[in-house]
């Protein structure tokens, strides 16, 4: 499955969950598929999407979904240990694994040899899912967090434009959404 299709299918099942989306094309693809006040598009700080999501999940009650990538999770692997130990029930980490650094020219990552799902299991994550051609995200939303979702996708980026919002605008819109009752 193309990554943009996976993003679309998952996003269609979401209602008021808060979404933190990874740097580069994943954010552009999410923005093109559907924009929402519940979305935070991370434009820099590669590797930090999972950690931002964790801090958000620990700070308020709404469910948090993070769209992360294989290259990004490899850059911040320690976060898996922190997420597991903090044990947030409202946290879902989706790793869109295309086995490459897709935004920089599709150079291979080590996930061609290493299985991220096995790593998450070995850290201790009790609720984990692996999806390839078929996604059942309703099942994920019904499970108790923290949840690790290994979403295998094809390499390549959709032909989508850059996000035409300023960083501050992204942040302020997102915070207004969180503060509304």
């Amino acid at each position, binding site marked *: 499955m193309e990554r943009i299709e996976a993003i679309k299918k998952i996003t269609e099942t979401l209602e008021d969950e808060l979404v933190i989306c990874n740097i580069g094309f994943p954010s552009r693809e999410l923005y093109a598929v559907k924009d929402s006040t519940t979305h935070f598009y991370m434009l820099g700080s590669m*590797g*930090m999407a999972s950690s931002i999501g964790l801090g958000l999940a620990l700070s308020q009650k709404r469910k948090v979904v993070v769209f992360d990538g294989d290259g990004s999770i490899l850059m911040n692997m320690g976060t898996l240990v*922190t997420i597991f130990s903090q044990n947030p029930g409202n946290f879902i980490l989706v790793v869109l694994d295309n086995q490459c650094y897709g935004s920089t020219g599709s150079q291979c990552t080590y996930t061609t040899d290493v299985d991220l799902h096995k790593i998450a299991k070995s850290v201790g994550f009790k609720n984990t899912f692996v999806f390839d051609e078929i996604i059942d995200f309703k099942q994920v939303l019904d499970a108790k967090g923290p949840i690790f979702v290994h979403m295998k996708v094809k390499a390549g980026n959709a032909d989508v434009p850059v996000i035409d919002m300023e960083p501050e605008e992204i942040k302020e819109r997102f915070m207004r959404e969180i503060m509304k009752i």
Partner: protein
Amino acid sequence: MESSEAVYNALKNAGIDFVVSLPCVNLGKVMELVDCDDDIIHVPVTREEEGFGICAGAFFGGKNPAILMQNSGLGNSVNVLASLYELYKIPILMIMSHRGTEGEFMSAQVPMGNATPRVLDALNIAYINPKTPEEALKVIPEAWLLSKTAQAPIGILLEIPFWK
């Protein structure tokens, strides 16, 4: 007043309710006090950069976040401070034990100790180095207020003599 208690009391007076930490020998007691406080969410982290990510999320969620770390952690966090905190204008109180300063016994701490103020300058991060517990108690809450108003990180550098 004892230095660790002054830092903890200052965090409380500032309204800090979310703390991430990585240990430093000088910060041990502050971390214990924070950990025992039911009104502060305390998240030990594996690397300071991760801690900055977590604090940004906590700020989005309505918290007043601080990081407790050794100044070496600043070196691990340069990109997140620039391309997340500066880019999106996010505040955070950075409490740093500043090793490699007067009285340092370990030569390995000196290079990063010397680089620390210049790294903060390069990132345009304002910082204060209170010399006494009384001064820390006064300036830390003011620093957090400034950070929130300016929507930018602020550093508190606590040199080796501060902890004596």
